[in-house]
């Protein structure tokens, strides 16, 4: 299987406010190359916002973001995002384009590949997620699980150094969750650097190398999954785990 261009990603003391709402209050997150960090916590704790700040979809008010040890805050944000793939809860496939065009669009327009070559690479990515036979369908004619796998292929096609998953299985019917989680597990084990915001405690516990528990815009606790799930040190994490497990 393909080698991933994994990089190490670090967020340092990230702050963000929307008006008076202080959403991120000094977040530190370090994801070593080739590892998977999962971020758990109650709704509204700032997990999804953290992802958007770390690829600069939203600019942080304060703090630093480092990719392979170098600050990327002064880089062109569009170029930074080409290096970080992102998968969304609602898939966000482009409904007016075919599955193959969804995957090849960035290859053609940003990587400037000729149409034929972009299509060939897109088909290769679709093959990896088991959906090559759907290349010429529209996203609306795919199941949620299939759409999410196309979304993963679309992100992987840009050969990213890091992959973000923002509650990638939350919008899926229960029977479709397994396929997407299996794919994410394969990526993690294949050496992709990943940040996974999730409500899937099984995935967080069994697949990730590090778990970060966020609440109200701060990192309450962070550590290897055994520690987080079997020996939580804070009352807040214990409360959260007893609610979700």
């Amino acid at each position: 299987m393909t080698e991933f261009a994994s990089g190490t990603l670090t967020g340092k003391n990230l702050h963000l406010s929307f008006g008076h709402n202080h959403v991120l209050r000094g977040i530190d997150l370090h994801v070593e190359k080739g590892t998977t960090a999962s971020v758990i916590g109650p709704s509204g704790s700032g997990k999804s916002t953290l992802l958007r700040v770390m690829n600069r979809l939203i600019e942080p008010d304060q703090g630093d973001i480092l990719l392979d040890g170098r600050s990327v805050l002064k880089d062109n944000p569009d170029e930074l995002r080409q290096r970080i793939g992102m998968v969304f809860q609602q898939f966000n496939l482009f409904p007016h384009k075919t599955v193959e065009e969804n995957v090849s669009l960035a290859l053609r327009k940003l990587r400037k590949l000729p149409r034929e070559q972009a299509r060939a690479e897109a088909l290769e990515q679709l093959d990896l997620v088991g959906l090559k036979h759907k290349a010429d369908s529209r996203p609306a004619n795919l199941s949620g699980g299939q759409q999410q796998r196309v979304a993963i292929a679309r992100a992987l096609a840009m050969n990213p150094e890091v992959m973000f998953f923002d509650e990638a299985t939350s919008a899926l019917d229960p029977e479709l969750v397994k396929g997407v989680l299996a794919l994410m597990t394969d990526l993690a084990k294949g050496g992709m650097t990943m940040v996974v915001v999730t409500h899937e405690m099984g995935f967080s516990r069994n697949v990730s190398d590090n778990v970060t528990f966020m609440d109200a815009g701060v990192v309450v606790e962070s550590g290897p999954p055994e520690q987080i799930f079997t020996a939580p040190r804070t009352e807040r994490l214990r409360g959260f785990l007893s609610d979700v497990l």
Partner: protein
Amino acid sequence: MDLLDQLADTFFNWEEMAKVIPALLMVGLPNTLILAVASGVFGSLLGLGLAMMGISRNAGARWVARIYTDIFRGLPAILVILVIGIGLSPIAREITGSRNPYPLGILALTLIAAAYIGEIFRSGIQSVEKGQLEASRALGFSYGSSMRLVVVPQGIRRVLPALVNQFISLLKDSSLVFMLGLAASDREIFRIGNDAMANTGNLSPLVAAGVLYLILTVPLTHFVNFIDHRLRTGKPEKKEPDELAAPIGKGAQA
């Protein structure tokens, strides 16, 4: 009985109709189509610009679009046509050396159409889910490229029915340029019917002009209903059950 005959003669005098039909088809129809299509195309381009300004993060651009739209949507079309057609004619004569008000008629119709089309585009673009822009930007596309490749094409598709309706309006409003006094070869459907009516004192030529408008507009309204229905229901393909494991995991098993 006399009254009925009189009415029939007033509205459906076949002889008078037959006399005006060649001019309606050979002169009026092309001119009406030129006026409507040209102002439709230019109005769409200008309208798209207004829509982009209307949703811009730049408050100045939003204001300009707002004020423009308020003015040209708030004024009667005939007033705009007269003011532009007469008021700008010295400038137009200076630039083109021609006294022909025809281009100014197109300009006036364009300015009016742009205000309506701009609002149609803006509502369509704003109806596209925020996630589309976010996903496109997450791939590394700039704001401009994301709008051009992802958001605007979807927005326009959603408002196609409203755009066709706007074009129907233009077909009808193009009749108002008769106020500018066009040369005989530049006259559109209404003016030709109206001239023939004035010359003969019989309404039948206007009825013929009306029928010609209906031949243009009625199929378009049904076309609107068709694309509206198609856009809402789509052409369904058969879904397949989702296969679970994806074969990416060769590395995972090793």
